[in-house]
């Protein structure tokens, strides 16, 4: 049985991680598409999807509503599960190595409007995170700041 696994930091550098140091992170992300645009989070190191970690004792529904509302200003509802990905990375806020199970859902907006001053964690503030509607036709041209192949995952949700 392997004792280490290959992961990465937020800049994409490969790091060897001890499996015994890993802890779980279960996270959920919303794919929200409206009028040929997708709701994304723009950060210093590229674009990602709104979402984040589930708290212990929290339902998936609640976690996705909370994260998307905090980061974008929209109240959303889950429509369909799109993808699940395993990823090993050094969490930038806690400097901790995590085994992440990342769950992607297509969602639709119930209410709210784009909040240019979202409710952010200190780390998110330092990366200048802000929500933005990105034209689907621009998806191939923007810089993705995420270990997952977000473009393929987003395309899967359109099919």
């Amino acid at each position, binding site marked *: 049985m392997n004792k280490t696994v290959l992961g990465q930091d937020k800049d994409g550098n490969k790091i060897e991680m001890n499996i015994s140091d890993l802890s779980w992170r279960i996270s959920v992300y919303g794919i929200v598409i409206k009028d040929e645009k997708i709701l994304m989070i723009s950060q210093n190191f590229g674009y990602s999807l709104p979402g984040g970690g589930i708290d212990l004792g929290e339902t998936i529904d609640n976690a996705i509503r909370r994260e998307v509302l905090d980061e974008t200003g929209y109240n959303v509802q889950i429509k369909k*599960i*799109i993808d699940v990905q*395993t990823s090993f990375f050094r969490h930038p806020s806690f400097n901790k190595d995590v085994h992440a199970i990342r769950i992607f859902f297509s969602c639709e907006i119930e209410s709210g409007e784009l909040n240019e001053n979202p409710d952010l964690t200190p780390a998110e503030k330092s990366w200048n995170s802000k929500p933005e509607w990105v034209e689907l036709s621009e998806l191939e041209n923007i810089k993705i700041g995420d270990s997952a192949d977000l473009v393929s995952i987003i395309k899967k949700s359109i099919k």
Partner: protein
Amino acid sequence: MKKVEGLKMSGEKIIINVDDLHFRPSIYAIIIKNNQLLMTKFGEYGYFLPGGGIDLGENHIDTLIRELKEETGYTVKVGDLLDIQTAFVKSPVKEKYSHTIKIFYKAEIISENPEDIILTESENILNFTQEWVDLSEVENLKMAGDDGKLLEIVKNCIKK
């Protein structure tokens, strides 16, 4: 202290302290062949799907292939992602409370090697067995540690 409503494997509702919870991500397969669904049975607790807990450091798809081999002796090819379900449950064999994240994939059997079967201590205690169940019979079965969502997931998969 923050509390949530959870359940025992018997289906009985219990109140759990959030501080006692640990994440337990797991993965299960829906395998249908000749109008029968491959199910696992935990003695008196009832039926569930083959699969099990993801180990730290292991890709979830590898977990599903490993668990199927250990529980049923089947080598499988993992297909489409079907659904996901979370629950707060008490372990039937230990004083342990889990925040479960169950991931369901469709899968198909490639080959069969009964000598690959290795059951865990918990599975032996729970009198674990496997069974092919007629699709028309699935909704009459008692499911283990489930709030009704499992049947819905299986039904949705059959419809596809």
